[in-house]
């Protein structure tokens, strides 16, 4: 048990962060706040991947000429996460653009207000 705590606490910390982000997305009414939560959520997922890539005693996967015995961390998750970051920023941008438009159209960016206005519209 203690071995797994020592070996896995990193993942668990990441998961706690991730869930904090997810909580902000699902529980908050403010649309901008939701986007912030989404950011935290996505960054935590990236942390999760990067944690997988880490090799104890390893170094960044930039090859050192002539050295054969260097231990490198795994480059593949890094590559994947570069893509994930891009996906994240594209999503954020689009979400915020929508938020700006919603503010223009409704005069508010609070979810419960929006629901109320739409209900009043019939």
């Amino acid at each position, binding site marked *: 048990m203690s071995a797994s705590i020592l070996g896995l606490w990193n993942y668990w910390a990441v998961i706690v962060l991730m869930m904090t982000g*997810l909580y902000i*997305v699902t529980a908050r009414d403010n*649309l901008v706040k*939701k986007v912030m939560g*989404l950011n935290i*959520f*996505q960054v935590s*997922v990236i942390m*999760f*991947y990067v944690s*997988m890539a880490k090799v104890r005693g390893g170094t960044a996967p930039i090859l050192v000429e002539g050295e054969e015995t260097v231990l490198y961390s795994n480059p*593949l*998750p890094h590559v*994947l996460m570069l*893509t*994930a970051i891009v*996906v994240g920023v*594209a*999503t954020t941008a*689009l*979400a915020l653009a*929508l*938020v700006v*438009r*919603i503010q223009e*159209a*409704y005069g508010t960016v609070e979810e419960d207000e*929006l629901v109320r206005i*739409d209900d009043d519209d019939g």
Partner: protein
Amino acid sequence: MSEHLPILQVVVPLLAGPLCLLLRHRLLVRGLATAVPLACLTIAGLLLHRVQQVGAISYHIGGWAPPLGIEYRIDLANAYVMVIVSAIAAVVMPFLPGHMGSAMVRRREHLFYAIFLLALAGLLGISATGDMFNAFVFLEIASLASYSLVALGRHRRALVAAYSYLIIGTIGGTFFLLGIGLMYQMTGTLNMVDLAHRLPEPMSPGTPGSRTVLVAFAFLAVGLSIKLAVFPLHQWLPRAYAHAPSAVSAFLAATSTKVSYYLLVRVVFSLFGAAYVFDALKLDRLLLPLSIVAMFAGSTAAIFQTDLKRLLAYSSVAQIGYMTLGVSLASVTGLTGGLVHLFNHALMKGGLFLAAACYGMRLRSSRIADLAGAGRLMPWTTAAFVTGGLALIGVPGTAGFVSKWYLVLAALEQGRWLVAVLVVASSLLAVAYVWRVVEVAYFADRDAGAHPIKEVPPLLLVPTWILIGATVYFGLRTELTAGVAEAAAGVLWESLR
């Protein structure tokens, strides 16, 4: 050039998107946007033909053999899906200029087509790929494009719908990504074939085995179920489809959920295998009730809608229930039913949303009550709607019947007669919601004060009728649907292991 067909299938629309930005001129862009889906359809047809003859094709992108590089792997199942997706795009695209023209600022039209083509490319990319992470990337391309397209609806509610679609869609996508990560952690690979071989076998058959693999499967399944709008994760769908421009709804309803379904089926059957998913996890015990509840809840909700597009959207929730039912029956016949319904539902829901778009154009409303008198004043549109509605019900001679036939047959094969009865019984709810519309359209009189309406121009009618005609054609000739679906189900069932 023919060995490049798999990549061309995706790269052609992928390149055409940015090209729209460079061309800018309205007519050029429209011409390009019309031609590209046709080209895609041709390529997909060639691929399907090729796959039928030689079996699965693998295309090594960048010349790197998998699992080092990314592989496009075309077999019957995804060739079939790509034919559907590009066919729907080819039909919907000519519809767009007439439909969207009034809703948009003229000088922004090229952006719209660029996004539309990218959505197409994303969906085709998901279908073609043999690499899980690549599937994620294209899933996000398609999703981002869909969010933007939904936001273009005419009412301001479209913005809120697009926003909530974006949030829930991103959560779904991130779940999918987490699932990939866990799976990668256990295997060290992202290639689907390789994954299927390397996923650790459970110690004893009939048990889930590794907890990580189990959770990986759960996250992949939940993530995709969100994108697919499986009950009870469906709430985004009615809002998004009801407020998106009708032609966009037609395209998304007919393709986007279908591709998610394909990917789900691919993960369930090809990657994890039926033995793992059904014998060890007993997924059917969860999915079967959910599917049936979706069928009834979706249809019941549809009955009480006052808005035509919302009605169609809720009906989609129910129809997705039929498709997942096919999976949960855990047999080749059931899967065939699901895949056939994938094709058939694409046709009929696409056609129905296009009909709704025709109504919207003339009536400037999508309320059912405003359809009064449409049966006489817009006879062709209404006839199309009725025919599509009959297909939803599953009247014999329409495509919907063929789907139901396979699903009921699959249920009876396993002696689940209650499921069989429920499947047919749920069609009655479809009768109820379709007929509500039919009665208003044919028997109610249009208000004397309402603005005059007339039939829409042929430019809009022809695409609508192509889809509706196809539902009738494929209700009678099923070599291409049931035949291919059955073979594809066989391919999927064998799994890559």
